[in-house]
């Protein structure tokens, strides 16, 4: 049979038609993709994401809502362009039904278009604000938090409970750092405080000496908006410069994560941070999760482990509601925005933009059974990404950035 152009068109046309018809029958397993990072500087968190997710699935015998789950793990190395390629590969070759991830903000933004185009159900770990605010992605749901969602309650706590009046902010010079600082500054200044100094060192600066030498000492506290290992290095050098005791460090959700805490010393004791999770949260789900994780891995679960464990709980609750029929994407999206589920981070539900409404914990580093932990000292219940502001008003403003809100009280 000669291979003619007509035959080719018929064959490809048939294949395209077959692909376009959604598979209605609930045959076969649910294919779950995890977009994570297992090589490069972000690998520490990315490996925890995989470990916690496998733990969740093992605890349920790899079965959610009566269907087997097949896990496909992809590693992007933390490179946004690579993330997009890997997601495409998971969709087109592995035919995943749903993706958990990606890990970082830049990767989430790089994948945004493709997620819309492929209509890929996504449960995100990354914090990029506008993906659930001014440019909501209809297939995107986030059970962790936006960048500023944990920083805004900390600002409230610092102003009202700790009684701080003058603070400096320092954060990585990336969208995540800008958004966190902006949220902190807005709430802190609305509560009557003043942000008198602001610094954005490059993400990959190995030495904070220059920034420490400039830090004002006539302030109450310095807010740390660092990710990865930067908070860890900043604090060690902070101590080295003899600043401990003169200025109080307080931190955002990744500055003193459990992952860096386990390598720190007494210099971390007493530091107050805020996050939507702590290994020390006292609820039944977390007690089970954290103790099992610790027993198996010999360290406490942190931000990234809790992120996938939470998203897996969201997935299971949604699947239970739609009886496992994940192939019906609109029904899944409708269901996920309506669920209410108890997870390791506490009760979780979603707003109409797909972002979580959940507890934010104010934590203080303490020593327990010989290791450093983030003990919970206060809980802000059901915090939304808009904090106490009205969503419509909040969304009329520009997205949190280096320049918005404008810093009014900087002193030079």
């Amino acid at each position, binding site marked *: 049979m000669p291979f003619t152009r007509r035959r080719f068109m018929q064959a490809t046309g048939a294949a395209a038609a077959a692909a376009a018809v959604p598979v209605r029958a609930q045959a076969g397993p649910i294919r779950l993709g995890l977009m994570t990072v297992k*090589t*490069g*500087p*972000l*690998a*520490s*968190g*990315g*490996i925890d994401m995989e470990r916690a997710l496998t733990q969740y699935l093992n605890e349920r015998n790899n079965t959610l809502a009566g269907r087997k789950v097949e896990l496909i793990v992809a590693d992007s190395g933390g490179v946004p362009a690579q993330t997009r390629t890997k997601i495409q590969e998971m969709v087109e070759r592995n035919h995943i039904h749903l993706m958990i991830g990606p890990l970082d903000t830049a990767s989430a933004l790089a994948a945004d278009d493709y997620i819309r185009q492929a209509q890929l159900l996504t449960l995100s770990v990354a914090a990029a604000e506008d993906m659930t605010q001014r440019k909501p992605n209809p297939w995107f749901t986030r059970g962790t938090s936006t960048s500023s969602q944990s920083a805004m309650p900390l600002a409230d706590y610092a102003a009202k409970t700790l009684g701080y009046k003058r603070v400096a902010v320092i954060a990585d010079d990336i969208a995540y750092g800008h958004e966190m600082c902006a949220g902190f500054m807005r709430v802190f200044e609305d509560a009557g405080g003043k942000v008198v100094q602001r*610094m*954005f*060192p*490059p993400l*990959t*600066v*190995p*030495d904070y*000496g*220059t*920034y420490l*030498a*400039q830090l004002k000492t006539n302030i109450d506290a310095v807010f740390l908006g660092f990710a*990865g*290992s930067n908070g*860890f*290095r900043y604090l*060690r*050098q902070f101590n*080295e*410069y*003899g600043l401990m005791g003169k200025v109080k460090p307080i931190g955002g959700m990744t500055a003193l994560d459990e*992952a*860096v805490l*386990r*390598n*720190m*010393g007494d210099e971390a004791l007493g530091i107050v941070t805020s996050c939507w999770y702590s290994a020390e949260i006292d609820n039944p789900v977390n007690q089970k999760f954290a103790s099992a994780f610790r027993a198996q891995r010999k360290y406490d679960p942190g931000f990234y482990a809790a992120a996938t464990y939470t998203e897996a709980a969201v997935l299971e609750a949604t699947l239970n509601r739609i009886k496992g029929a994940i192939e019906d994407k609109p029904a899944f999206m409708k269901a996920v925005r309506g669920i209410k589920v108890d997870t390791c981070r506490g009760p979780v539900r979603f707003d109409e933009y797909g972002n979580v409404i959940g507890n934010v914990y104010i934590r203080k580093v303490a020593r327990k059974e010989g290791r450093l932990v983030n003990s919970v000292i206060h809980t802000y219940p059901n915090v939304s990404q808009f904090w106490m502001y009205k969503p419509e008003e909040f969304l009329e403003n520009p997205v949190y950035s280096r320049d918005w809100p404008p810093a009014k009280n900087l002193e030079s």
Partner: protein
Amino acid sequence: MRIANLTHGALFMLGAYIGVSVMRYIPNLWVAALVAGLAVAAFGGLLERLILRKLGGNVFGQVLVTLGVSFIIADACLLGWGGDPIPIQTPAILQAPVRMAGFVFPAYRLAVVVIAVVVAILLYLLMERTRLGAMIRAGVDDPQMASAVGIPVSRLFTTVFCLGAALAGAGGVIGGPIMSAYPGLDADMLPLALIVVILGGVGSLLGAFAGAFITGFVYTFGVALLPDLAYVILFLPMILVIAFRPRGLFGKFAA
């Protein structure tokens, strides 16, 4: 030598991680620096003998190979030591900050400055005042003629490469108390090393010394005065030097 070596950042990080492991058994920074220096020197020697030797004169090959090797080292470190940052203890006597004329300065950083100056002087004496140094200089200037008069150029280059690797490895440990060991340390350090070398001039010790000073001062004051332009300030002098004086300030060859 004329080798474009981009593994220096990775060797620095490898040294830091080896130092971390040594200090688990012998909690002494100086011993750890020595051991890491020797180990990284051995690694550097193998790299030079087995791979770089075959790429003499092929600059693109050298750049690609050394870049590839640094990625391999980085992921091997991730596999061996995990992804979490690991602190390196500051020696007890250097932990307290020093107070001078109303300024507070960490004692350990002063010690690092002293070590750097001593190493620079030793290197200068080695190159300019010893027979070995004279042979190295001869080998770099004209390898064929040097061989003809009986200088073992090949063995000499391996030695020099080992020495460079040893300094990078020991440097990783000595920088450890300030920076700690973490994935990505290699990529954070390499640009600084490149800027120093290009600014000062390839193949010149005095150039490297001047380049380091200029880079350090420009970067520190630049960050303090114009924080938003930190990277512009860091790279602009290098670009200007390449554009107007390709040999660098004191270099012998074009970069």
